[in-house]
């Protein structure tokens, strides 16, 4: 057992599952958006706004945002632990990723629920 406190779920199985589930969520979200855009070729601002601010789309967008952040965290964590061997550099990068993720989370929530 190799200990690591900076990984997303601290367990290999958990990270692996989250990585898969989040990929499916983001994939479905992209499909929904694509489907909508293809189904509405002459889309105007009002219509798009109504669609994106509808209750179910807000939930879907929030889910997709959370899934993207988790997915990115796990992926970037793997990359930093593969390629950055200096622990100070590695931890700095991981911290920067963490702060960026927190900013995106709050910012995304503001955009999604503040409209």
């Amino acid at each position, binding site marked *: *057992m*190799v200990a690591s406190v900076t990984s997303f779920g601290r367990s*290999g*199985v958990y*990270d*692996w*599952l989250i990585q898969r589930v989040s990929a499916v969520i983001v994939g479905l979200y992209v499909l929904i958006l694509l489907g909508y855009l293809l189904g509405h070729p002459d889309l105007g601002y009002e219509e798009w706004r109504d669609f994106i601010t509808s209750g179910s789309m807000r939930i879907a967008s929030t889910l997709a945002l959370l899934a993207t952040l988790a997915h990115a965290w796990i992926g970037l964590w793997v990359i930093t632990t*593969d390629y950055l061997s200096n622990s100070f550099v590695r931890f700095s990068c991981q911290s920067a990723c963490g702060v960026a993720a927190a900013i995106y989370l709050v910012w995304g929530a503001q955009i999604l629920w503040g409209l």
Partner: protein
Amino acid sequence: MQVSIYRYNPETDSEPYMQDYHVNTGGKDLMILDVLALIKEQDEAVSYRRSCREGVCGSDGLNINGKNGLACITPISEAMGKRDSKLVIRPLPGLPVVRDLVVDMGQFYTQYRKIKPYLINDTPPPAIERLQSPEEREKLDGLYECILCACCSTACPSFWWNPDKFIGPAGLLQSYRFLADSRDEGVSERLSDLDDPFSLFRCHGIQNCISVCPKGLNPTRAIGHIRNMLLQRAT
């Protein structure tokens, strides 16, 4: 033919270099190990490991024209790609070089030790032996044949980056060899040891391990089996 050998003697060289030799193979399709023997006749300082010279002991794993393999069972014709004009022999990648083609296998064995490569069974053994049915025995095929040559682990990028944390394909194949053994009682202990983000999950399915294994084994499949066992246990 022209042969280029990786040379490094830590006592006299400040850094490794490639040295060229001209070898007369007499037109025969020799094994790479025979070519090395001919070079050693010219220059007895050239160092490499070998023992059985028939693909059984696993001591002469080398990087031959960019691909890991056992020198004793790799013929020149197989080692030379269409565009290769000479033979280039280097030590297995990723492990510290002791001298020339000899690497320090310490990290590889440390990972192997971690998977507890022995039967865990606290039940007192019967008078003669612990029996297995032919079907149970069959589950070990494709696993027990591993000769620990390290060709696979030293071809695995995940092992290059984290040789101290990732068990590597050879160790994981052996881990599954014991997980699949009907006489072993250590399943949950073994799985718990692997349930972190590095030991097993650093495998990204790159499959270099399969393409180099001189015994034709499939570590990626074994890793997949262990992952499924871990998932089943956790969900």
